[in-house]
């Protein structure tokens, strides 16, 4: 028989009954206590208060019994051990549980970072196309469609990528020196890039590179990664253009860039378009970066496609001796592309509001 204190969870009166151990449990005997037997298994540890061990009963948070120190062994041996960190951690011990959690977290992080690469190839093209249409639409009316430019652009595209029926190549009336592959096989060339390029072969290399990203499903990877990050970082925000901006400024991994270059170079080789112009173009952009300073370059082509000496070299050395190269398109077609925005009366003005 042991004195305990007890709240019954129906009134605030503190009882001080005797605890009588019976088979499988105990009974509380005293004024205000019901005579039913409480099984040991029903007890839930509720911590220690002023040295007293406190237990509740499953399913009844108000019911409490407190055993004062020292608790007789006949009772103590039946009491469930107190909870501290939470059930799992208590079971395995702090350090072992901690190590296991750390291992699981490392695996989860690894999967999280790799998942976009694994998942992207399995996203159906039709989904990606719908997503691309929903996200990009007509770019707020900024796509240029001057006389003859559509036909010229198509000619350039079919020249380097004959299987390009599913692609949508557009010129956007935006002064940025950049080109970007967006979801759904959309490749957007910004007006600024056209102004920087000296001949259609330069554009062919850049276009081939972006088509490479499309074919390698790099865009879907980047989008998935962006989505994942925004979920992780609690990205409930109303910055609607965020995803497209992020895609434009996102840098693909070195590998993805190299693979897109390989695709571009191989396409040009097959088509008999000289890769030397693209190499020259990269050279000029790199020079320009030095002049402009990094800040302005970061938002453009160089920011999202780091131009390294290696890349320039890859294009330059791919030109085999004895190959006969022809211009990618005719001078007339090139002129139509260059003036596409200027000659399009309906295109949205570039007011710098897009980015």
């Amino acid at each position, binding site marked *: 028989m042991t004195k305990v204190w007890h*709240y*019954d*969870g*129906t*009134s*605030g*009166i*503190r009882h001080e009954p005797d605890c009588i151990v019976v088979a499988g449990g105990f009974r509380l005997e005293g004024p205000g206590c019901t005579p039913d037997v409480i099984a040991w298994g029903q007890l839930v540890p*509720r*911590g220690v*208060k002023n040295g007293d061990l*406190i237990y*509740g009963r499953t399913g009844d948070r*108000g*019911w*409490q019994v407190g055993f004062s120190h020292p608790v007789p062994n006949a009772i103590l041996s039946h009491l469930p051990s107190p909870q*501290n*960190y*939470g059930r799992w*951690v208590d079971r395995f011990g*702090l350090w072992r*549980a*901690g*190590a296991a*959690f750390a291992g699981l*977290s490392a695996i*989860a*992080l690894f999967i999280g*970072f790799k998942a976009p690469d694994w998942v992207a190839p399995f996203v159906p093209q039709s989904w990606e196309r719908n997503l691309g*249409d*929903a*996200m*990009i*639409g*007509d*770019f*707020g*009316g900024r796509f240029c469609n001057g006389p003859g430019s559509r036909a010229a652009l198509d000619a350039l595209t079919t020249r380097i990528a004959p299987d390009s029926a599913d692609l949508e190549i557009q010129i956007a009336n935006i002064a940025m020196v950049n080109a970007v592959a967006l979801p759904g096989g959309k490749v957007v060339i910004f007006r600024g890039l056209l102004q920087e390029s000296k001949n259609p072969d330069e554009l062919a290399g850049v276009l081939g590179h972006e088509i490479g990203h499309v074919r390698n499903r790099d865009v879907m990877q980047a989008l998935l990664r962006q*989505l994942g990050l*925004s*979920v992780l970082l609690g*990205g*409930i*925000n*109303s910055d*609607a*253009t*965020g*995803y*497209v*901006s992020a895609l434009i*400024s996102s*840098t693909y991994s070195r590998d993805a860039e190299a693979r897109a270059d390989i695709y571009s170079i191989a396409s040009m080789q097959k088509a008999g378009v000289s890769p030397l112009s693209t190499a020259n173009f990269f050279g000029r952009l790199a020079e320009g970066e030095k002049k402009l300073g*990094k*800040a302005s*370059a*970061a*938002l453009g082509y160089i*920011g999202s496609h780091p131009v390294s000496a290696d890349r320039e070299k890859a294009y330059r050395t791919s030109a085999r001796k004895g190959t006969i190269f022809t211009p990618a398109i005719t001078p007339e077609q090139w002129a139509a592309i260059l003036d596409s925005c200027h000659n399009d009366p309906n295109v*949205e003005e570039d007011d710098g509001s897009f980015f």
Partner: protein
Amino acid sequence: MGVGNQDQTALAFEGNWRDMIPIALTNLFLTIVTLGFYRFWATTRERQYLWSKTRFIDDTFEWTGTGRELFFGFLIVLFLFGLPFLLINLVLQGLVLQGQQGVAGLMITALNFLLLYLVGVAMFRGLRYRLSRTYWHGIHGGCDNGGWSYGWAWSWKTVAAYFTLALMIPWSMTSLWKQRWSAMSFGPHQFRSNPEWGSLMPRYLIAWFSPWLALILIVVFGFMAAIGGAAVASASGAESTPTLALGIGLLLVFAFYVLIPLAALFYYSVYMREVIGTMSLSTLDFEFTARTKDWVKLFLGNIGLYLLAAVAAAIPVLALGLLANFADLQPGQNPFAGSLLTLAAFALIFAVPFGLVATFVRFRNWSFFVRHLEAVGEINLSALTQSQTRELTQGEGLLDAFDMGAM
């Protein structure tokens, strides 16, 4: 039994910050290795300690909430609100790019209203959850109202208060406090709350005027310095702009870090005294005794702790030369693009000191609150029967999602 008289206060906090150290350290460790998922259980352990050290008359409170229910609350909010918001974001994106700025703008406005509404609901439900998990003598508190109507009251009163040049804020704060607490109960007794906003207005007007006062001070100073500077400059031919800029800078710092916060605390202290002082539960009357100087001390201490954390984080950052990644950082560029390890190192270096300090800030806030809370009156323990309010099954997920604190 009678409680609370001149000599003895009915409420006391008997916790010790040294007892918190093992709790804080193990919580932080487990939170880091679980990538933050342990925080629900960490919160529970922290509250168990704080509640168990808060004595009311002859016994302490007991926190009976569990980490699991907080975690489920978080999951429910994630699926009910997080994912839909993400999808809406994608739709919005498409609308903007397709030139439908008008529709997108409307949607964003509607979304912001919905968020405001949910903040109100979350505050209500958070309070309700905490009361329902707080036990004393085996009795708990709670409420049967879901807080959905409170969400509307909160939304329109907040908007209305700001539409009157923010002059109606004391009215919205007190009437919302009253609505919130009048819905809550402990045991069989309903809380009663009857704050008046008129008596808060003098101090509120001072707080309201303080940014304008700062602006006037700066303009007057600038004007005088310009006149004085012009005179000096014409006499000596020297440039006076640096001193002028320095003076205005100092005034701005003074205004933002001293004048305006002080004025805000000056109001907030009278607000808390009013709303708690006019609250009662059955035959118990409550009182809150913290004066402005107590609040200032609380805030200075907390700011000191955070500064300490900042220094503790700065030392390894500088020692390891981690800032090199940020030198020459361009817009749109990710400083961690190259190295996951650097990112992890950064996260750790900041998580450890700030995570630890945050625990002690919560400890100080709780201790401050209990030390200044008084209850006077009679309690009839046999009449203090169990609360008949519905048991909640999940925790304060919504409140957690909006990242709002316990006070």
